[in-house]
């Protein structure tokens, strides 16, 4: 790791708040999307040469969003600068940059809001901290709104529930609108539009991969576990992050899903049209983008005639699926308009739509339809990393907090050794992996490593005290981020894996097929 130009934070004896280092991360920003990338997804290609035009467009968009999103409007008005959120962001803890304090991040936008949309800011800008939108300020937006993983940890501690993720999304939407997009996210959205998944994996390649998987599993277990694609009339459509198709350790979980379907004898399929669960529309903040990406799942479900839709191990995808699909694409219940009725008539109302793969598996376990050899996981001492989008923005099961219990229940059902990390770092106050929200790109590695710091500290504790050697998680971004970042903190990258990887290890397949 000698090639890094920055210091990796040192483990602290007590979790004291860092001393502020103004500007410490001002240099950090992602690559700007090219004109081609921007235009492919319907945004302006690049910034206008004339600043005044950019300025006016940005303010106009800001005004539009204020009228469309109550969250933004209330959040711009309600903050009292109490400071409760100041020390809650993993990027602040890891970087010491005061602009990574959630309230200061919001203030980059709020100062503009005051200046253009409030009396106080128009009349007494100095008094209330209102600022003109300048090119420099827009650049600061570009730096600091791309150092927020939209993890919502700060929102838990705010007396008004002010959610920086909403503010970040609005800022990024404005940036996209004026032609100042982020290459990584927007390129991926372009691929989804064109091919159906984040990796740009075409149908035939997908088929090859799945065939290879079947052979591997057969060799491994002697059982013909199927990984079907585009099967008309299957009971379940599984939508999973495309990283599951080829990346390690993600693929181990995909193998696990297949084994669960096999063991329970439930027919299922993947779709080449909607192979991807990830929805980066959440990261660029555009409702329209998010809707367009989500529509593929609707189309695939209607075309294949499935009864249930299950989502694989992906954090933000699960947020979008759980919380937004019903609204965006009609997967859910309770809609009484023609659009949603069409799909809701087809889906089986006895199951939550969509379901998370963990809900699906846990349901089968409770029914006694799956059997495990728990000892098969005895070489592992397991801890669980709650992914932020699952923990703070979605649910599983029929009761609040099911998203914490169900994955842990599964782990305990398939393995003997489980310990939790410190309570102030898990469940609804879990620390982000540091790579969520569209940050998972090489040029942001400094923010990613530093942002992972609080999670690494908590992990270090259980490694030391309990010999933990496996951190299970149910998010593709967490998995990718940790495999990259763990070595910088002295851990083996193989320490991270999926919950269904553990299921896969312990499940009894029987000989029937």
């Amino acid at each position, binding site marked *: 790791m000698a090639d890094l130009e920055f210091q990796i934070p040192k483990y602290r004896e007590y979790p004291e708040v860092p001393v502020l280092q103004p500007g410490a991360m001002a240099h950090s920003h992602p690559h700007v999307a090219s004109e081609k990338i921007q235009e492919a997804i319907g945004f302006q290609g690049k910034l206008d040469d004339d600043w005044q035009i950019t300025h006016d467009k940005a303010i106009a968009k800001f005004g539009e969003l204020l009228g469309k999103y109550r969250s933004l409007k209330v959040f711009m008005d309600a903050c009292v600068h109490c400071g409760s959120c100041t020390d809650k962001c993993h990027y602040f803890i890891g970087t010491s940059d005061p602009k990574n304090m959630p309230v200061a991040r919001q203030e980059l936008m709020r100062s503009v809001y005051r200046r253009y949309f409030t009396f106080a800011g128009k009349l007494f800008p100095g008094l209330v901290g209102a600022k003109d939108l300048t090119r420099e300020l827009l650049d600061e937006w570009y730096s600091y709104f791309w150092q927020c993983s939209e993890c*919502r940890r700060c929102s*838990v501690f705010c007396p008004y529930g002010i959610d920086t993720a909403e503010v970040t999304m609005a800022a990024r939407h404005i940036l996209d609108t004026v032609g100042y997009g982020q290459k990584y996210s927007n390129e991926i959205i372009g691929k989804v539009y064109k091919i159906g998944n984040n990796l740009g994996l075409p149908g035939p390649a997908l088929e090859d991969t799945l065939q290879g998987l079947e052979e591997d599993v057969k060799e491994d277990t002697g059982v013909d576990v199927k990984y079907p694609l585009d099967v008309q009339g299957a009971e379940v459509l599984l939508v999973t992050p495309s990283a599951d198709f080829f990346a390690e350790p993600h693929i181990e979980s995909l193998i696990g899903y297949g084994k669960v379907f096999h063991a329970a004898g439930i027919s299922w399929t993947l779709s080449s049209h909607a192979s991807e669960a990830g929805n980066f529309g959440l990261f660029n903040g555009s409702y329209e983008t998010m809707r367009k990406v989500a529509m593929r799942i609707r189309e695939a479900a209607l075309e294949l005639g499935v009864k249930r839709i299950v989502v694989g191990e992906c954090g933000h995808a699960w947020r979008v699926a759980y*919380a937004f699909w*019903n609204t965006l694409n009609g997967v859910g219940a309770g809609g009484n308009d023609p659009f949603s009725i069409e799909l809701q008539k087809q889906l089986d109302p006895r199951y939550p739509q969509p379901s998370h793969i963990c809900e699906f598996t846990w349901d089968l376990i409770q029914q006694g339809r799956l059997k495990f050899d728990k000892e098969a996981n005895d070489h592992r001492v397991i801890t669980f990393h709650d992914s932020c989008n699952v923990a703070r923005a979605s649910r599983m099961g029929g009761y609040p907090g099911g998203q914490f219990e169900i994955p842990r229940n599964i782990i305990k059902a398939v393995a003997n050794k489980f310990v939790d990390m410190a309570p102030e770092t898990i469940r609804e106050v879990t620390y982000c992996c540091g790579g969520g929200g569209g940050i998972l790109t090489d040029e942001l590695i400094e923010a990613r490593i530093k942002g992972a710091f609080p999670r690494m500290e908590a992990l270090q504790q259980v490694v030391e005290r309990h010999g933990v050697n496996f951190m299970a998680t149910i998010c593709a971004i967490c998995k990718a981020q940790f495999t990259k970042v763990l070595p910088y903190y002295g851990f083996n990258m193989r320490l991270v894996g999926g919950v269904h990887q553990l299921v896969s290890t312990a499940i009894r397949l029987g000989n029937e097929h």
Partner: protein
Amino acid sequence: MTTFFAILFYLAFAILVVGLAYKIYDFARTPAPLSIPTTPAPTTTAGVAFRLAREVVLFESLFKGNLWIWLFGWMFHMGLFLVLIRHLRYFISDVPAWLVFIQPFGKYAAFMMVAGLAGLWARRFLVERIRYITTPSDHLWLVVLIGIGITGAGMTFVSHVDVVAVKAFFLGLMRFDIQPLPDHPALYIHLILVALLMILFPFSKLLHAPGVFFSPTRNQADTPREKRHLAPWAAQIEKS
């Protein structure tokens, strides 16, 4: 002076009511296009009401966030609340028994209020990261509120004012029959600051008071799979 204060209070009251009503209308008419409660969130409307009540009365999230801010913030708000109730006596001609009963609590609550404010203000100087996020108007509000608290408590405990006359003045205001206001410097400062607070309320961060009830992360039930959640502007997209 009496006329000045009469006009001032009519004006302040009008601005407060109209401004606040407009803001609340503005919050209410702005759609919330997506379901975004911060989980674990209640799944029923009653659960949401209970969650909001805990936020408003106990400052639950702030309690989780920072004990010092919570302590000072809670002292200030609860003190203010008691003081405000106590002040009802200036607006009701026959003071009911319960209001008489809480008078002593209301009186001493002023100290709690000022102590809380002092604590919050101290943090703005002493804690580096709080200092960083403080704007001049944050200081100003603390000055105004502390000023109101000190002048108010001063009139109760140090240099008494003719409260009967003050009451007559406010009752008169309500009946459009202006009565003379006693001549007392602390009272003047007190009333000017209160009027200032009322006038600036709808244009300032004091909007957190109505805002908390409109915050989607706190006021939504967690039922997106059971209920479709379509905003009018989003429904338009479906038609195209």
